[in-house]
């Protein structure tokens, strides 16, 4: 089945099986491995991407359902070679350890701050409650998002491999 999607502003077309999950389409067809794939049971949020500006769990959506829609992944967070403040916040505050949950956490955090630029700690915790972290205990993730809220312009350049 033919799908046309825009990912981080770039148009892609592919012929895929309807059963292909969006997370596998992004990782395997488009070879964009920033989006992680974790629990497979709609619980962990590692696979979070935006579909038409709403963060969703991409393991729980078919790629064909994204036809004609616009997708944003963690690879698109940095703009013009400068990190998103959320990314810099995770650096400044030691917001990750193994990094497995991080792309999903950052996509959720960015969406949260776009809707609510000055969230309380409770609102942050609620905002990332669909994202599970097995390493950090969340404290530094919350701090990283608070850092981003307080520093709406990041200054660190993106390093690309």
């Amino acid at each position: 089945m033919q799908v046309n999607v825009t990912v981080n502003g770039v148009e892609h077309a592919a012929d895929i099986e309807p059963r292909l999950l969006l997370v596998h389409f992004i990782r395997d067809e488009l070879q964009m491995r920033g989006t992680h794939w974790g629990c497979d049971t709609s619980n962990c949020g590692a696979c979070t991407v935006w579909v038409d500006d709403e963060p969703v769990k991409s393991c729980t959506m078919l790629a064909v359902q994204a036809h004609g829609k616009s997708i944003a992944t963690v690879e698109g967070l940095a703009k013009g070679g400068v990190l998103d403040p959320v990314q810099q916040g995770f650096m400044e505050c030691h917001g990750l350890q193994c990094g497995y949950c991080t792309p999903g956490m950052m996509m959720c955090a960015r969406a949260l701050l776009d809707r609510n630029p000055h969230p309380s700690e409770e609102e942050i915790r609620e905002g990332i409650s669909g994202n599970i972290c097995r390493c950090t205990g969340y404290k530094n993730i919350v701090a990283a998002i608070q850092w981003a809220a307080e520093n709406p312009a990041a200054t660190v350049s993106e390093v690309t491999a």
Partner: protein
Amino acid sequence: MQTPAPVDYAKATSVADALAKLAEHGEEARVVAGGHSLLPMMKLRLARPDALIDINDIPELAGVRIEGDEIVVGAMTRHRDVLDSAVLAEHYPIFREAERVIADPLVRNRGTIGGSMCQADPASDLSAVGSALKGTAVVVGPGGSRTVALRGFHQGPYETVVGPGEILTELRYPIRPGAGSAYEKVERRAGDWGVATSGVYVVVSGGVVTDCGIGLAAVGADHYCSPEGEAALIGKEPTEENLAAAAAATAASCSPNADQRGPADYKSHLAHELTLRALRRAARASQGA
């Protein structure tokens, strides 16, 4: 890696188009709404439809509006829009209180009220809310449309009156001036299904309870409600003693099963305690306090 079995897929553009596509694909075709119950079940082969008819892009199926003395909620209205609805918050805070504790913000961005009703999970929060409020469902099929009381909508766990080839299009809830409402849930961790839940509305007029509805999920309440608890309260003053008696009658009418979320006696205890807490708050709200 979990992946659904091969399946056909078609996107419907209107209710009529969805009905035509369901008919075309036959008995083993299923509607996909938010997909947050259906896709996980397909990955586990607990569901194996031949075809998915996608109703996500049917604008007429989404949204909350008032029609006469009813609030109408389209089946494709997502949890997040139920949570954010000013109309629902004004008339029935029970919706916002329930939605705040349904799953997590990501699931709420996709999951829908219609999917919650049709999935008919015994722990479905919105099924408890719908039964508490004595709402109705509009079901459309090849033979036309019918309206079904939500207290008769579910035929058992994971079973509803919606037949193959039919679609739930909207939920309707009567507006009750002066009603207070509240929802209570105990969950093991943030975002989980309830161990037990109770949601109620209460109308207090002239110092007595003139009307009330009690809905429960995850505690084996028939049709997610307790007419026994309601009967124990109607016509009585909303005193602590009377509310507690109604909560006790409610708990007695439930038959919870022990499972990984807890033993049956604990769930019975919760059915009592959560109903009492919800009744207290709803009665107070109805009296303007």
